[in-house]
């Protein structure tokens, strides 16, 4: 696996909500090598505070050598990035980690919660160009409220997916957890791809296990390097010891990890 360090340049900045930003970045080497589910480590500025790079899923890849990341403002790193305008340089390392298994072995479903939606779009893009290009595959998207979901839901629809939404406040689609939408779909599919908050992924993982369906999860942990060197990004593994999310993941089979965390 080859990683690149690229001084990317922001080409587009989209404000989905005051808290959710999408940056498109010119990073031709990383864009060319990227696979769905992989991520980049981004330096949030020139200074030493914040010190560490921040991990972000590769959200989209375009044929012009750009890629996009989609993120929510959480703390000081994302706040700095949210203020960056087109033309600003951003150091990226990537593509990193192990992406999604691209052979779902039949009908599949994607489930994204919050910013967990980010990697799924790249996956959806990729399936469009593969043998799994049938229309109306289900995509379940959840968030707190409609604002951060509207544009994304439309974009998945444009790719030909059948999008179902859920919001905590009921402002778009089902009111409640996005996982509640899964039950009716489960018996029609062979594989679930899920990314979102841990409780959500746990729920999905358990439903899939009960239904005997394969489930791929994309995990988040604190990361210092993203390269497998610091050993900081551990998640308890089934059968003892730990998975290193940056190298063994971020995408893992749901049964490889322990969901009691």
């Amino acid at each position, binding site marked *: 696996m080859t990683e690149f360090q690229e001084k990317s340049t922001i080409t587009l900045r989209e404000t989905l909500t005051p808290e959710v930003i999408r940056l498109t970045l010119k990073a031709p080497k990383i864009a060319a090598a990227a696979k769905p589910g992989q991520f980049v480590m981004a330096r949030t500025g020139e200074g030493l505070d914040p*010190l560490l790079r921040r991990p972000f899923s590769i959200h989209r890849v375009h044929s012009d050598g750009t890629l996009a990341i989609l993120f929510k403002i959480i703390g000081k790193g994302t706040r700095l990035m949210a203020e960056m305008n087109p033309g600003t340089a951003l150091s990226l390392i990537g593509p990193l980690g192990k992406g999604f298994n691209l052979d779902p072995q039949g009908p599949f479903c994607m489930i994204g919660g919050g910013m967990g939606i980010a990697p799924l779009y790249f996956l959806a893009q990729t399936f469009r160009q593969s043998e799994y290009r049938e229309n109306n595959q289900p995509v379940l998207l959840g968030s707190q409220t409609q604002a951060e979901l509207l544009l994304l839901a439309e974009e998945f629809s444009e790719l030909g997916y059948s999008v179902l939404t859920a919001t905590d406040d009921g402002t778009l689609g089902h009111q409640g957890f996005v996982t509640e939408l899964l039950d009716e779909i489960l018996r029609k599919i062979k594989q679930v791809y899920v990314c979102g908050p841990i409780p959500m992924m746990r729920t999905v993982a358990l439903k899939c296990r009960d239904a005997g369906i394969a489930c791929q999860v994309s995990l988040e942990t604190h990361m210092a390097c993203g390269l497998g*060197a*610091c050993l900081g990004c551990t998640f308890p593994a089934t059968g003892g010891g*730990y998975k290193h999310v940056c190298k063994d993941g971020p995408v893992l089979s749901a049964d490889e990890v322990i969901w009691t965390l």
Partner: protein
Amino acid sequence: MDPINTNHSVDMRVTIGDLQLGNPVMTASGTFGYGREFASLVDLNRLGAIIVKGISQEPRPGNPPPRIIETACGMLNAIGLENVGVERFITDKLPYLQQFDTPVIVNVLGESIDDYANLAARLERVEGIAAVEVNISCPNVRKGGVAFGTDATMAAAVTSAVRQQTRLPVIVKLSPNVTDVCAIARAVEDAGADAVSLINTLLGMSIDIKTRKPRLANVVGGLSGPAIKPVALRMVWQTAKAVAIPVIGIGGIGTTEDALEFLMAGATAVQVGTANFYHPTSVMDIVDGLEQYVHEQGMASVRAVINSLQV
């Protein structure tokens, strides 16, 4: 990834005990994995030495997560010395590194003097290891680490045990969490160390005020990065005056300027740690930068920088 100044014919060699390095820039243990992790970003042949993740006799799973936390200009880690154990290191990790010209230094850790002695004896029988760095200072494991590194007598005992088992250069890595680092340095020098390296991490802590729990599962962890550079530099300067063996400077080094400060303070070589995470090419930038500095200053060799501080 070519050096910027390939045309400089600058003498960058330094010597640590019997070990000659092509240049004084090494990677700090635990921050560069087993080397391979950085192979697509760093030209491993250009490094002075590679120091691998600390190795114990048996494999160790390490601490539960969270293991790392960012702090102001630094980070805390409580990895818990996760490693593959000496046997798998020899069979799975070392062969890859042997294809490069760069000396491989193995960082070892144990929970008893016997552990250290056994590791030294085991590595002595392996080809392709340039030196042993003895980690007596890791703060993450309750037994071992802290006690050895903070007590001169214990530190000396570990050093002689290792010394007796190996003809390889022995570098003893010192803990900064002590009142008098010079006393420990002199004790391990007397016990037969060929060099000392310092500093390991400062013991620190962070609390999540939302959960009212420590941010690290291990409660305390080791502070590293630019935040600790002033403390590291002071200790290196004091130690270089206190011992006759070479001193290797570690702590917050991320730029050529940082490396120069440590060399001027008396370090014969430096190790780059946390900077490998946030700026993986810094080791190469520093090799280039030192070369350029020596060239621009019209010095005969990088060795002219060492201990050049005017106090």
